[in-house]
């Protein structure tokens, strides 16, 4: 018999034109289940009006980002054991810095517009992904193999970013990381965007994006690297190289 916990889920609820509120549901859970499983259980057995977004349940689609006890999590890979304990109350809220569609669902259209604008790569050669293998262990012919990029476009970094909280114009961590991924030398057309007032200089180095990123993108490091690249590109412009 798997371990059983009694858990109280406190869920943010909001329907169009209604005031927000929190609803609580007490469930019997297996602590090794994921937060998303518990939310889905509320929908299946307690309240069919609950809206939440989810698809792949294994961290490839980026649909199920929520704030769990205030912290952005991809709920499909966050075991209950990692964020709470037996008998506790677990608060689940929608991501910040996006308009709320209903309950735990936000409209991330703005993020997708920015990802399109920077032409973020969805698929890339396996050898270009900064993966655990040291680069030297790739065979030369491996460059022909492609993989889906690390960034799931899940919006967690935007929700956690203190600068994104103050202005929707800021490009934000994921789009800036996507510019860095393509590189200023290969994609000089992205320089004006990266160098704009809503670009790389608006970051205030809070490193929250990297802290919440569920998919190894490390946007903060990429933003810092992009600053170096932008300075390099500007210097090349000045000295005409």
């Amino acid at each position: 018999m798997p371990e059983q916990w009694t858990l109280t889920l406190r869920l943010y609820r909001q329907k169009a034109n209604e005031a927000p509120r929190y609803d609580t549901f007490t469930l019997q859970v297996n602590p090794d289940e994921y937060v998303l499983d518990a939310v889905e259980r509320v929908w299946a057995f307690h309240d069919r009006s609950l809206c939440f977004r989810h698809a792949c349940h294994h961290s490839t689609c980026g649909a199920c980002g929520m704030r769990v006890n205030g912290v952005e999590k991809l709920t499909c890979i966050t075991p209950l054991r990692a964020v709470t304990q037996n008998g506790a109350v677990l608060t689940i809220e929608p991501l910040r810095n996006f308009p709320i569609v209903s309950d735990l669902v936000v409209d991330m259209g703005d993020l997708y517009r920015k990802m399109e604008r920077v032409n973020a790569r969805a698929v890339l050669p396996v050898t270009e992904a900064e993966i655990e293998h040291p680069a030297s262990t790739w065979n030369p012919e491996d460059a022909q193999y492609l993989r889906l990029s690390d960034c799931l476009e899940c919006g967690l970094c935007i929700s956690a970013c203190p600068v994104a909280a103050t202005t929707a114009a800021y490009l934000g961590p994921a789009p800036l990381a996507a510019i860095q991924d393509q590189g200023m030398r290969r994609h000089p057309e992205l320089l004006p965007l990266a160098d704009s007032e809503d670009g790389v200089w608006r970051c205030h180095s809070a490193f929250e994006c990297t802290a919440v990123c569920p998919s190894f993108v490390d946007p903060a490091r990429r933003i810092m690297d992009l600053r170096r690249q932008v300075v390099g590109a500007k210097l090349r412009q000045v000295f005409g190289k």
Partner: protein
Amino acid sequence: MSKPHVIIIGAGFTGVATAHDLALRGCQVTVVERGDICNGTSGRTHGLLHSGGRYAVKDKESAIECIEENQILRRIVPQVIEPNGGLFIALDDSDLSYAEQFIAGCEECGIPLEELTPQQALTLEPNLNPRLLAAFLIPDATFDPLRLALAFAATARHNGAQFRTYAEVETLLMDGQGNVTGVRILDRAANRHEDLHADMVVNATGAWAGQITAMAGLDAPVHPTPGIMVAYDQRLVQRAVNRLNEPGDGDIVLPQRRMVVVGTTSFTAENVDYIPVTEDQVQLMLERGSELIPAIRNARPRGIYMATRPLVGSGSGRSMARTFKCFDHKETHNIEGLVTITGGKATTMRAMAEKTADVVCAKLGIQTPCTTRETPLLSYRQYYTLSNQEKHYA
């Protein structure tokens, strides 16, 4: 003359692909979905773009569909695919004795096949079980489930289709003679009931198809058949790795982003809204998966989930064909206005949509032929950027 209006229930693979097809053929399309895109079976699919090799021996109809659709999807939606091929490997005598039928089946179905020596296979994939006895390369691939559906939905939306997500169908609207004329939905985001009228309603709810047909007093021969998938936190292979034998539990390991995903099992379920994960099945995936890729034992599970296949027809579980069926309920039960499409698999989503759209168009008198084979899909992101939902900031 205004365009005929078709309502599609369900925004899984079949629903979005049918919306795309019908929008191209000039229908006014509304997709109603109780959750968001791909929240049911489609989102939780294994992510294998089948070459057909898995079905080449016992289910040639599915195998031929798979290889054709595999090549079409690679062409029209490369943005969501890791097109790295797949391997079938033999680990024991039983596997080896299957090889002959496998080669013959692939040949018959037109699936390109290349035999490798175990040494060649290990050079390509160093993490394979070094005890392997034979290996075959076939054109499998991996896809991102949500983005695959979104690319179809984005293109459909671009061509005028309306998507009503978080809209649960409560009843079918009937004309008094038992014919279907639309749906009553509960918009769960706005907490509001609404009647939508249509010239035709397409039931594309997969494993839930029986719940919709029951609203019209009909049965649908759908057998919800769940299976488990376990995603491990290391990308140990670049290709899909299949056990060279009849389809069985945990016989496919495939790469996706930084993970490998092992699947799957096959059992029957009553309540398809929530299928709990059981520990013995997780263990089974570890055992079977590590036979193919021993290093899986050093990886940690990252996501564990259940998906419910909608199988159609007679028989049960593994022995049932993986092909799809489109039912015009005028023919089956003399009820006009309702078409049910179910069965099939992610790889054949476009073909399922083509068949369904053919049926719908024939009934609506639309002559336009299907063009989805040649139409490249828009970026999956455009599903969201084309959205015009009412917004309010919290």
